[in-house]
Every structure is written in structure tokens, then in C-alpha cells.
């Protein structure tokens, strides 16, 4: 009984603490013409943020191959995690990456075959399929639990960020910037939501049509 009591007290205090000293940052991302930019990844690093304890996200760590496309187009993954690659098509896929963060190759024979790959370095992993040139996706391996991906409307909310000045990094595969990433400083208030509208200078997706 005392254990349950202690748990409730600790949970209550933790909740209060986070409520009192943490806020949300709601990003609204658009390109230079004002159109929403989806699939951008926002990562937030609070001040004196050292190495994050192991953390999880609430989305599945999975890159599907379905209808000759990868889904999702961008996946945020905590460093050190495994990602599965289920083949939902009846055709074969030959998934590969030459990105320094994780070079690998997976031969996926047929429907429902799945393999897993561990991503143990922070960075961007560009995925391709050698059989279908137009299949493209990106895995963003991150070392902060404060991360979110922009939805179709260009909205991304990072929740429970400790109050104070924080460093914000915004990455998109087609962002015109060194390493396709820009860095901002944002002041997070002790409670409530900070709204950040950011203009991103993106280029059109590269021509990835294959002849065969």
C-alpha cells in the first residue's frame, strides 16, 4: 500500500514540477511562398542539457514499404533504437543507405517480411530502394526526447520543454542550409504554449524518377 501511496505522491509532484517549469513550443512551418512545410523535424535542446536518459517516442519505429513507397517519408528515432522495415507489397524491395550515420542494405523478399536495423549514431539516414528508384525516405536519429515532426499543415508541437532559453534545430531533407538544418534560440515560459512561426527556404524535391 505504501508503495502505491509513494507512487501517487511522486507522480503528483512530478506532474506539478513539469507543469510549473515546462512549456510547449508550437511551431508553424511554411516555405518562402507561405505554403505549409510538412515532414520537417524540430529538435529542442534545453540549456545545460547533457546526455538524455533513454527515452521513447509514442510513434511506431517502423518504415513500411507499401504501394512502392516508404511510409512515413520521415521518421524520428531515438539514438540506439531499432527500426523495423516491413514489406507490405507483393514485390521485392532492396532497401539501402549509404549515409555515414548508418550504411546498411536489406533484401526484403516478399509481403510481410520484416527486418530490423539499429541506429546507434545521431544523424540523418537517407533510404533508397535499388529496385524502385523513386522510393525515398529519411530517418532522423536524435539524442533529445524533445522532438516532433511537422504534419501536413506544417504544424509541430514539442511538449514539456524545461523553461528557459532553449536551442531549436529545424531539419528538412530539402532545406537550403548547411546539413539541411537551421538553428534558433527560443525562450520557453514556465507554463503555457510558445508559438513560433518559421519560414523555411526549401527547394523542390529532387527528380528521382527512374527509367526502370
Amino acid at each position, binding site marked *: 500500500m505504501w508503495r502505491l501511496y509513494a507512487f501517487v505522491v511522486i507522480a503528483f509532484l512530478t506532474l506539478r514540477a513539469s507543469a510549473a517549469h515546462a512549456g510547449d513550443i508550437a511551431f508553424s512551418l511554411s516555405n518562402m511562398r507561405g505554403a505549409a512545410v510538412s515532414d520537417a523535424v524540430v529538435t529542442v535542446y534545453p540549456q545545460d542539457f547533457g546526455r538524455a536518459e533513454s527515452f521513447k517516442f509514442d510513434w511506431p519505429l517502423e518504415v513500411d514499404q507499401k504501394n512502392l513507397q516508404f511510409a512515413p517519408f520521415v521518421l524520428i528515432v531515438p539514438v540506439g533504437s531499432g527500426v523495423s522495415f516491413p514489406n507490405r507489397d507483393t514485390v*521485392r524491395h532492396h532497401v539501402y543507405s549509404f549515409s555515414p550515420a548508418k550504411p546498411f542494405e536489406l*533484401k526484403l523478399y516478399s509481403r510481410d517480411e520484416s527486418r530490423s536495423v539499429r541506429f546507434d549514431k545521431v544523424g540523418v539516414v537517407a533510404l533508397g530502394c*535499388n*529496385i524502385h528508384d523513386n522510393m525515398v525516405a529519411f530517418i532522423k536519429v536524435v539524442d533529445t526526447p524533445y522532438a516532433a515532426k511537422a504534419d501536413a499543415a506544417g504544424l509541430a508541437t514539442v511538449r514539456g520543454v524545461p523553461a528557459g532559453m532553449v536551442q531549436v534545430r529545424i531539419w528538412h531533407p530539402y532545406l537550403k542550409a548547411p546539413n539541411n538544418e537551421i538553428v534558433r534560440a527560443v525562450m520557453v515560459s514556465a507554463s503555457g504554449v510558445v508559438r513560433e512561426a518559421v519560414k523555411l527556404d526549401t527547394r523542390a524535391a*529532387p527528380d528521382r524518377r527512374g*527509367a526502370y
Partner: protein
Amino acid sequence: MSRSALTGAVALAGGLILLLAGPAQAQVDLLSPGVFSGMIDARLSASDGETSWTDGGFGKTRYGGAGGGEIGRLQIASADIVWRPHLAWDLTAYVDAAAQPGQKHGVDLSEAFLLYKPLPRPDGLRYQARVGMLYPPVSMENDGPAWTPTRTITPSAINSWIGEEVKTLSAEVTIGRRWADQDMSLTSAVFMGDDTSGTLLSWRGWALHDVRSTAFGDFPIPQVPLEHKPVFATSQGPDSQSVDEIDGRPGYYLNAEWRTPAAITVNAFYYDNGGDRTTFVNRNWTWDTKFWNLGVRFTPDDRTEILAQAMTGRTVTGFNTPRGWRVDASFDAAYLMASRKLGPGLITGRVDAFDVRDATFQTLDDNAERGWAITADYKHPISDRLTWLVEALHVHSDHPSRAYVGLAQRQAQTTLQTALRLTF
């Protein structure tokens, strides 16, 4: 049966047997459901104007009118089964069996080749090889399953001609390199076959249609009174066998493509079938055909695509005379096309311009023409497997040799079509 197609089929079958004779490996997959795909195109059309070239007339579109009256048609415009067996992870075959109404054979081969494509190297360098009967990399429109145009029902004049008269038995190598934001590649090939390329362009002129040449099929040449074709009266049959090898001499083509960081792709293609102008076999002449094609693709944003191609070339056949070669025609065509996503759909508009300039014997056998076309399409996805398209196509052309059969040399034609494409 055509010699070239037979050679291609034998080479492909030989390759398959050699591979299968090796130790059975899990990577070989010949018959699982995943190696078969295909497309069926159900078409409703209404056309006015002259009789279509596909029915032996001079009409520029696939479906013609009745010389003044309108004709409506409902048909399966094409049905394709594509077999892509895996012989190894980096070696596949591609065989497209096509059924197209009005063709000599109910089912015929559209393309059949082996593709060797190893993984790119870590530094971004890649290479691939194709061997067999295939379309050279000219069309920027025909990027759908079974070489279908994906934005419109009817491809441009340029790619309609590629579809009917530029199919080769190639040994083709591509070397390319990808960087983060750009890609360059160089393709070169030697080929047999395609010796009749230029026949339709000279004697019929340009056309806009989605009929593809096949290994064993042929296309009708508009027939005119024999006094206009004295040399060819007995040596040239009424049909052109598009893929055939006649003179035993190889041709070649080259293509360079640059996908620039600025969302613009440019390519330059050169083709020379190396034809021996004076050879004929099975009542088909060898045409010596050379052409350049330049292509540009521009995507100013994620919803808009601009495509353009321009082609210029020359085709020559028959014996040389004091007044020049029997047929010596230069040809040019270009199109500009814009597509824009509209909700789930896609709207496309295209303008085509084309001409043939005849350098010899114009008073006897005038192969000149000038023309233009305008095309508008709307494409709407109904489900993952079902796509609906509707198209209006209007062609104007001035073709003097129509007068040989009592037609006005200037003709206009409109086709309204709707297609339901099922892919599987």
C-alpha cells in the same frame, strides 16, 4: 516472323535458361505473384474529321472520324501483362506482353530485356545495363507501367513517334553519379533492329496516339496511287514492320542527363540507326535515320511540373539519283506541357508543333507537312488501382500528299476520350 524480334526473343530465352541452369537460389523468383503486374485501359472516344492512320487513312489521331461524320467507340484500348522475374538481386528481366486492338497479333511483345542493376557504390557512383528489345530513354512522358504516358491519354507527337518507330534491340550501359542535390548520367548503346524507323514519319507524317510498336506487328502506311511511289511500287509493302533489322548494320544512341540542384532536369539524346539506305527485305526498306532530342523537366513547386521536348532529325531511303535520294526528309517537333495537381487530381495542358521538310522529288511524292496540336487532360485517382482520365485533343495539319487520294491537304481533327485505367 521478323528476324530481329526472333533474335531478341532467343537471346532473352537463352539468358534465362543459362541463369536457371545455375544452382537454384532463393533470390531467383520467376513466378510469385509479385513478379506480375499490368494495366488495362478501357476507353470511350468520339472523333470527327478524316479516317485515322490506324485504319489506313491520313488522320493524325488514334481514333478518326468518318470523313466528316463523327464516330464514337468503346473499346479496351490496351491490356498489358508485365513479367519482371528476379534472377538475382541485381539481375531482373522485363517482359511486357501487350494486347492492342487493330494489331496483327492479339497479343504481342512490347518490350523484353534483361536489366543488370547492382547497388550504387557508397561514393554515389552507379551503373546499369539493359540488353534486349526496349525503348531508348527519349520520352519524358511515358513513365507509367507498360510505357504508358501518365499525365495524358495521348502522348506528344514526339513520343507517339518513339512509341511506333523507335524501339531497338539494344545493348545499353548507363553510368551515373548522385550527389545530395543533383545527379548526372550517361547512357550509350549499340543496337540492331529499327531499320524501318522513318517510314511512317515520311509517308504518313507525325501523329498523336498511344499505340505502341510490337516485336511481330506492323503499322499501315497510307496508300496513294502508284505513280507517286514508282520505285516503291513493288519493293515496299503496305505495312511497316517497326522493330525489324534489314541491313545487318548496327546503330547507336547516346543520352546525357543532368538533374540539377535547381529542380530542373535536362537531357540530350542522339540516335543514328546506321541504316544502309538501299537495302530492302520482306518489302520493307531500310531508312537511314538520325535525330537529336532535347528534354527539360522543371518542377517550380511540389504541385507543378513543366515538361518540354524538342526533336530534329533526318531520314533518307531509296537509291541515290542525280536529283538526290529517293526520299530525303528532315523532321522537327516540339511540345511544351504543364501539369498541376488539383486536389487529388492532375490537370495537364500541352501544345505540340511539328513539321517534315522534303528535300527531293516533291512534285512527284511530296512528304512535307506542317501542323500543331493542343491537348487538355484531367486525371483523377479513384482508388489505388483505378485511375480515370478525360482528354480533349485537337490537331491541325497541312499535308500535301493527302491530295493524291482526293482529300483536302489541310485537315483539322478533334478527339474527345475518357479512359479508365486499372493497374494490378
